[in-house]
């Protein structure tokens, strides 16, 4: 009957139900039996003869050939089914393997879709590969351009089809309900032609047109309900009239979501060669390569250097594909996170490999039986690979599902401080990536048990012991795992330490009990209007009960400087270095120093026109002998200021390597339309936010007021992206450590299980359980130490790559390396403890009997 059922099985696999086929074959059998009876056989012989015809050699021999072709196609399915059955008998192992893989795939897939949006997905313009950014730099540092130089590139570089420029600013839309801030791109030259943007409604503007605006699709839908009658209407932006002439396509983001594109105003167009506020883009001719563009660009830059030595002396320019330029800020953070995620995935893979290896060891007997029954090496390898494929595809699918959540979480969690030229999406590209990654993983961790199995010798396996080779392979894998997690932990430790450094070095001001309010005027707002507004606001603020001091600054501490440039000191010859070195300039108004809590060390804080307060670092650098108060300095080569006071150093950047020299001047002595009001309060700053808003609105009801928030909150924001990044990396490192610990535990546990008899004999011969315990623990710790050594060596070589994320911490910081080593060894000892205790509790009598 065995062969009958084999035929039944063969047929069942092809789709019909077993019952159907059984019925058909039984019918045949009975017909044949009946025929045999007719022929004169007795009942038993008739039946047996009929059965034999199902079981003659044709089933095993030639007759099956044409069926065999189909059978081998079915092998894959059979292997996969068998693998699933095998794994379902070990649910713990299958779950651990699939879960750890899903975690790794999830993290990498979510980060992949971020990276995809920034680097890979083509920009939403026709022929995006032809668009380049013309990046100018001065002495190696990138600096913005101006309309004059843009015109030089447009007329003198023949490789370029069209050249345009842009800068972005917030314009306040009034007269359409509550005032709202519109993120606006100001375009110069043939900007729209470079991008080849065609409005979906209306028309685009000509190169020299003014007073017109193109609305984004999103704004058109949300504010004007997609109504075409908006075309031709006049909108008031920052008090100036603009005619709506068109609506942009929905997918346009440049470099991220914008509300409107308008041609630049006349004063900006008339800016001189000295100005630097413009970003330049160009479209190269299709037949011309990037190298050719750069050669021509270099030649023109050389000509400009000679023609305009005053402004262009140290300038050079380079054409960079637009996508790369737009993604430049995102490159490093994303790369760091992505590599961390890949490391975790790699460790997870090693874990799964090690699990499968232990399973292969357990199944050695089974394998050798298969071999002795004639299973080829190929079949065996296929069998093992099928198992790892089931795990990897399972992990990949789960990872893909979880990755969607992870991406949403990532986007919500990280205040991403870089632009997305295309919005991150979780689509077939992510799915493809997840699939590819999981298949690669499957092949990777399927390799170890396969190698083990195919190298197995029959005799060795029958003895039921593990080959030395298998044990060393597992140990090697665990060592590699430890090394990888050390690598990750060291990197995270370094980044975390520098973050700690950044946040715990003195800030130089007192952020508690301070409220801040932002007001942004457009760049074409007349100076008088800005100053009038701030005077009125400060006056109103000082009348609010509970306000101790109120002042204004162009940019809050830690938010960077506004203008920088070298200074001259009257009556002193500066060193060559100081002559070139930039000094930060901040414009203030009112009682800024008291409001921000910046100590005045010498002189006074309240400024009159032509006076300046300098910081301590400036005094140390430019007046090493002291006596700075009363001296005069010159900024930007022409503006003369008298020093009337010295203030304590205030951190300029959230992450600051070196304290810059800084000077404070009255806002009336310069031009800066972005204002931050700083209000020191007696009680809780949040409680007077309402009256602050009221008094600002009284100063000008039409002026849009930005965020009003305690200074503490604003500061947290400026470093929270870093903090989240470290937190995220910390999670990765934690997972890596956990996986390494699990791996270590696994290898020791199976080692103890296999050496049970040996341990029992030792104990019976008088070995101390304590000795067995410490031997096993030290075995685990030694293995971890070996991995640690490799990991530390690798970290020493690789941490240079994270150097750009480090502030005040050397890539070889001994504290971080030491702490990581300690944590790892303690974890290793803990992971070895359970198997060690199990080893020491082996009952000698019991094992001897076994």
């Amino acid at each position, binding site marked *: 009957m065995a062969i009958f059922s084999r035929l039944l099985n063969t047929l069942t696999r092809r789709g019909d139900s077993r019952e159907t086929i059984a019925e*058909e074959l039984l019918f045949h059998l009975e017909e*044949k039996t009946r025929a045999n009876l007719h022929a004169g056989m007795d009942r038993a012989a008739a039946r047996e003869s009929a059965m034999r015809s199902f079981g003659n050699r044709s089933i095993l021999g030639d007759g099956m050939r044409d069926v065999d072709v189909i059978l081998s196609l079915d092998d894959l399915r059979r292997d996969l089914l068998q693998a699933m059955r095998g794994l379902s008998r070990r649910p713990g192992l299958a779950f651990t393997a699939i879960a750890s893989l899903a975690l790794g795939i999830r993290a990498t897939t979510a980060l992949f879709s971020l990276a995809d949006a920034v680097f890979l997905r083509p920009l939403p313009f026709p022929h995006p590969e032809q668009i380049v950014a013309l990046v100018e730099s001065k002495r190696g540092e990138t600096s913005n351009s101006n309309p004059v130089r843009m015109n030089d590139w447009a007329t003198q570089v023949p490789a370029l089809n069209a050249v345009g420029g842009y800068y972005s600013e917030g314009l306040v839309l009034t007269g359409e309900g509550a005032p709202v801030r519109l993120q606006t791109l100001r375009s110069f030259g043939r900007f729209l032609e470079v991008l080849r943007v065609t409005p979906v409604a209306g028309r685009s503007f000509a190169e020299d047109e003014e007073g017109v605006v193109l609305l984004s699709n999103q704004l058109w839908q949300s504010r004007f309900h997609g109504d075409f009658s908006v075309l031709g209407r006049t909108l008031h932006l920052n008090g100036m009239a603009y005619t709506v002439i068109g609506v942009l396509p929905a997918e346009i983001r440049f470099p991220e979501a914008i509300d409107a594109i308008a041609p630049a105003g006349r004063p900006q167009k008339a800016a001189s060669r000295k100005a630097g506020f413009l970003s330049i883009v160009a479209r190269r001719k299709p037949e011309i390569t990037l190298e050719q563009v750069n050669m021509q660009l270099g030649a023109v830059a050389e000509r400009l250097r000679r023609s305009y030595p005053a402004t262009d002396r140290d300038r050079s320019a380079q054409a960079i594909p637009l996508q790369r330029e737009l993604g430049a800020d995102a490159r490093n953070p994303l790369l760091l996170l992505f590599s961390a995620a890949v490391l975790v995935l790699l460790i997870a893979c090693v874990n799964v490999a090690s699990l499968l290896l232990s399973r292969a060891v357990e199944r050695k007997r089974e394998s050798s039986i298969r071999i002795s029954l004639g299973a080829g090496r190929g079949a065996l390898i296929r069998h093992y690979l099928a198992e790892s494929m089931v795990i990897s595809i399972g992990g990949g699918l789960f990872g893909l599902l979880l990755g969607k959540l992870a991406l949403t979480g990532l986007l919500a969690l990280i205040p991403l401080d870089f632009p997305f030229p295309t919005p991150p999406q979780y689509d077939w590209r992510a799915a493809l990536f997840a699939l590819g990654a999981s298949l690669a993983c499957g092949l990777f961790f399927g390799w170890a048990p396969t190698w083990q199995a195919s190298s197995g010798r029959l005799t060795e396996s029958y003895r039921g012991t593990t080959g030395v080779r298998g044990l060393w392979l597992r140990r090697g894998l665990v060592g590699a795992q430890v090394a990888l997690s050390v690598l990750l932990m060291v990197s995270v430790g370094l980044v975390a330490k520098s973050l700690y450094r950044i946040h715990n070095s003195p800030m130089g001001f007192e952020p508690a009990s301070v409220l801040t309010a932002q007001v942004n005027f457009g760049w074409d707002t007349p100076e008088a209007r800005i100053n009038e507004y701030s005077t009125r606001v400060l006056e109103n603020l000082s009348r609010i009960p509970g306000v101790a001091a109120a002042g204004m600054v162009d940019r809050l501490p830690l938010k960077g400087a506004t203008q920088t440039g070298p200074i001259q000191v009257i009556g002193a010859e500066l060193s060559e270095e100081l002559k070139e070195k930039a000094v930060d300039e901040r414009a203030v108004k009112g009682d800024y120093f008291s409001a921000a809590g910046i100590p005045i060390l010498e002189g006074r804080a309240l400024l009159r026109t032509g006076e300046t307060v300098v910081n301590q670092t400036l005094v140390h650098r430019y007046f090493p002998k002291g006596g700075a108060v009363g001296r005069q300095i010159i900024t930007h080569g022409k503006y003369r200021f008298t020093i009337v006071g010295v203030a304590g150093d205030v951190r300029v950047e959230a992450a600051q390597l070196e304290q810059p020299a800084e000077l404070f001047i009255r806002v009336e002595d310069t031009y800066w339309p972005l204002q931050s009001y700083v209000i020191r309060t007696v009680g809780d700053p949040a409680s007077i936010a309402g009256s602050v808003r009221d008094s600002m609105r009284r100063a000008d009801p039409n002026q849009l007021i930005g965020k009003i928030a305690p200074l503490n909150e604003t500061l947290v924001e400026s470093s929270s992206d870093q903090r989240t990044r470290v937190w995220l990396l910390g999670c990765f490192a934690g997972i890596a450590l956990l996986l390494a610990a699990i791996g270590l535990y696994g290898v020791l546990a199976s080692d103890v299980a296999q050496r049970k008899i040996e341990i029992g004999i030792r104990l019976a011969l008088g070995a101390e359980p304590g000795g067995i315990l410490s031997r096993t623990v030290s075995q685990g710790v030694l293995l971890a130490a070996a991995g640690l050594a490799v990991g530390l060596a690798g970290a020493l070589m690789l941490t240079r790559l994270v150097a750009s994320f480090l502030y005040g911490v050397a890539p070889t910081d001994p504290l971080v390396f030491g702490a990581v080593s300690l944590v790892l060894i303690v974890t290793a000892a803990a992971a070895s403890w359970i198997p060690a205790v199990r080893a020491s509790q082996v009952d000698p009598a019991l094992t001897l009997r076994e």
Partner: protein
Amino acid sequence: MAKTDVLQGTLTLLVLKTLAAGAMHGYAITQRIQSTSEDLLRVEEGSLYPALHRMEQQGWIKAEWGVSDTNRRARFYSLTAAGRRQLAEEERNWSRLTNAIGLVLKFT
């Protein structure tokens, strides 16, 4: 009598040709082939059913439940249009092959 297994690859042709006469069940197919070939050809059950299923999957034949002349439920196979085309094709191939073999036998 020495048993003559159906020549490899010709089983399909034989089954198709047999079914061209009308629908019949598996047992009837073996009987029909055996009797028309005057007991020279015998189809083994172990080959027949896999072949029938394969041909069903190829779309050459289709299977339906019916009642046999012994009044029992049986699965009846019949030719499809594709099966008819396949039969014509295999018949052509067969006669080309036998011709060729005949030529070789005649002239060497």
